[in-house]
């Protein structure tokens, strides 16, 4: 008996999903118009974006570049677009951008700053992209700390070479003494000998050699430094030095040695408890008081020292977080392998702790880089200080958006790339599942 007229024996072909759930329309429905509340929010946001863009875009692009003063700028605007003020006057940036970037650095020596910047990038490459960079670049990284200050400040090459020689002396002392006198004494010697060399001998040695064979480039005074270059210079110094000091402070804070721990905690909490500006006051007014009578060293160096100490305290806390986040088993595992304290730190603990704290470390870097602007308060002409000077100039009195937009753009580019790099690094080092 079969009253069934039709039996399907093959599968129906798949139908396409409804047009309203896939592709552009589906995405729009899901993300922008999924309910009445969402639709209202979308419409409000679109209105907001329209409002912002309709103000900003004409301001940025229908703008005046060829003007030498704000009044001239306004005249041109009135002629071109009628009496509206919704147009930027980029003339100030065109006229002053070199000053905003280089401060009062002599114009004929800009190449030295540029060369230093190129060197910075080259020296950073192996640090940032270790496995992709050519190995030869490590040599650039090695000579960079000596070459960069010499390029910027100029003066005799011998002084720089003598300072570099101190490192060589330390290394030699370590290599020569290690087989004879044991590791401890050689480590102490490799720390003490260079200091003696730098403090007492390097200066006169450089003087003698320089008298025999003068070699050098034109000197640039510290007060000629300024602009964005100063921010980068201070940022590099503070960032570069704060990481090792921060690691040592963090280890000190985690250690079992009561006195060492107390000293580290006291230092960290003190620095973190006061604003950077008070430390900069110390740099500009008091640091010379703390040193022997008649000592007077460079203001930029003093600021670098205080900013490094400031950054180091914050760095120490970030790294302490990483150390505390490591499971205890890692420490015990290192002990059971028979590694001593420093070996365990170097091979087991630090690589993991630093990896965990990358986001914190980078945001500290970004913070310290942004904080370099505070030097304008103690009278150095960094970008913000220069902006104040330009706004006080009669030609540009009354301008603010254009200047600050330019400065904000400079900082944004650097800080944003740092935070993106930290994300890349996190992804690269992510070895979990």
């Amino acid at each position: 008996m079969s009253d069934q007229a039709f039996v399907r024996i093959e599968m129906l072909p798949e139908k396409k999903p409804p047009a309203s759930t896939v592709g552009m329309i589906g995405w729009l429905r899901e993300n922008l118009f999924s309910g009445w509340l969402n639709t209202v929010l979308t419409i409000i946001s679109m209105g907001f974006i329209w409002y912002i863009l309709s103000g900003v875009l004409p301001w940025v692009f229908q703008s005046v570049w060829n003007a030498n003063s704000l009044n001239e700028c306004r005249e041109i605007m009135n002629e071109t677009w009628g009496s509206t003020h919704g147009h930027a006057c980029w003339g100030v940036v065109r006229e002053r951008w070199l000053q905003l970037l280089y401060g009062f650095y002599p114009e004929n020596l800009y190449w030295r700053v540029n060369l230093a910047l190129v060197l910075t990038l080259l020296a950073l490459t192996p640090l940032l992209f270790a496995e992709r960079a050519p190995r030869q670049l490590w040599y650039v990284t090695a000579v960079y700390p000596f070459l960069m200050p010499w390029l910027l400040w100029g003066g005799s090459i011998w002084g720089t070479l003598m300072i570099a020689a101190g490192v060589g002396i330390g290394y030699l002392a370590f290599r020569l003494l290690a087989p004879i006198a044991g590791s401890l004494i050689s480590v102490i010697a490799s720390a003490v000998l260079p200091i003696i060399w730098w403090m007492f001998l390097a200066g006169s040695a450089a003087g003698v050699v320089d008298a025999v064979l003068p070699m050098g480039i034109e000197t640039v005074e510290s007060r000629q430094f300024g602009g964005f270059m100063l921010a980068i210079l201070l940022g590099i110094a503070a960032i570069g030095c704060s990481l090792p000091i921060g690691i040592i402070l963090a280890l000190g804070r985690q250690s079992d040695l009561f006195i060492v721990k107390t000293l580290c905690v006291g230092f960290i909490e003190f620095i973190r408890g006061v604003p950077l500006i008070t430390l900069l006051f110390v740099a500009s007014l008091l640091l010379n008081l703390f040193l022997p009578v008649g000592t007077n060293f460079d203001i930029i160096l003093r600021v670098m020292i205080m900013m490094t100490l400031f950054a180091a305290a914050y760095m120490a806390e970030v790294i302490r977080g990483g150390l505390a986040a490591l499971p205890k088993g890692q420490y015990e595992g290192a002990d059971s392998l028979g590694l001593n304290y420093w070996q365990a730190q170097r091979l087991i603990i630090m690589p993991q702790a630093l990896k965990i704290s990358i986001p914190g470390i980078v945001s500290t870097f970004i913070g310290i880089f942004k904080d370099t602007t505070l030097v304008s308060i103690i009278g150095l002409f960094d970008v913000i200080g220069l902006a104040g000077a330009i706004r006080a100039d009669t030609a540009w009195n009354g301008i603010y958006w254009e200047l600050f937009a330019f400065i904000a753009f400079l900082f944004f580019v650097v800080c944003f790339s740092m935070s993106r790099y930290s994300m890349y690094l996190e992804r690269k080092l992510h070895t979990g599942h």
Partner: protein
Amino acid sequence: MTTLTDPPKESFRLSMLIYDTRYRSLTIQVVAMMGFMLVAAWLINNTLTNLATLGKPIDFGFLGDPASYDINQRLLEYDSRETHLRASFIGLLNTLVVAVLGCITATIIGVFVGVLRLSKNWLVAKIMTVYVEIFRNVPVLLWIVLAMAILIESLPAPKAFRGENPEASLSFFDTVAVTNRGVYIPEALFSNSLGNIHLFGASSLRFDISLDLVAIFVVLGLSIFSIRKLAARAKRIQEATGDRPKTWHINLAILLVPMICLLVILGFHLGYPSLKGFNFKGGTHMRNSLIALWLALSLYTAAFIAEIVRGGILAISYGQTEAAGALGLRPGKIMRLVILPQALRVIIPPMISNYLNLTKNSSLAIAVGYMDITGTLGGITMNQTGRELECVLMLMACYLLISLSISMVMNWYNGRVALVER
């Protein structure tokens, strides 16, 4: 029987101080202590020698001298004949004012932005991301200076409010005057005022407390106390009978009636700003420097708080919500009883450290001329008296005090909410 023989007595050798782990930590600590004390002694000695050479030994006597500068934005009475100590005290209060105002607004904006960044609406989430990235990646000093410039350059001058057809008019139903000399907001006035209590006599730290304000707070406290009593009673009834009595109308009455009575008795009214001569009179005058600092610090810190809030909410796994739903809790209760207590544990510590940052960043007031403690003690007083060491030390001590008190609160909170594990 086993006989125990003493191990051969090791005589103490000097090298054991380094190579024997029993003594090594002691050696290291003693060396560290000696090194620290040597360096400290060297620094202090240098400082004393230098100060003696300069002819200005450490002396805090200058704090009693007349300050002879004016502080235009202040909470307490002050004039330029008063002492430097008084000026510093006024400055310290100004720091606290901007810190408290900033923390409140930064929290409100930050929570708002942080929650909206998690919105399912793509456009809203992106707008908030742009806000966070722009404010986080540009120095706060730039925001402060820019806010100041905008306020000065773009707002109407008081004279624009004058005449038959003024170019500018008061905002918020004619109560708030926004001018390029600052913002004038209505002030609270009491026609039957109870007067003030004067604390600390005539010293530099003298402090007036308005009794009207005290009365308002006392009444408010009593109202809240009775409301809580009422809630406890309602809970008892609920546990006994299963029915929870309605209390909200009684609560509202307890809150409003005494307060309104008190305000009527005190003769509460608002004093509005009005244009007199070249400037506005009446109302509370908030200067541009305060507004710029407050605005910039709040917007900047809010970007960080937004990230913290977002992280805190993301840190609570979705299973918690589902489990609470499975227990039969309603969405409001899920948020209040399950999600929020856990998220707050993640959110509060970094939030407080951001409050701390905001307080420390308020020292940038000096860039726009707001007279906080850095502007008074670390600014004009220091420049006038030439007492750099004393001023900077006192300045640091003030900030340390603020920071340590906030940290103490944070540690107390952390201890209270910490998960108790095995």
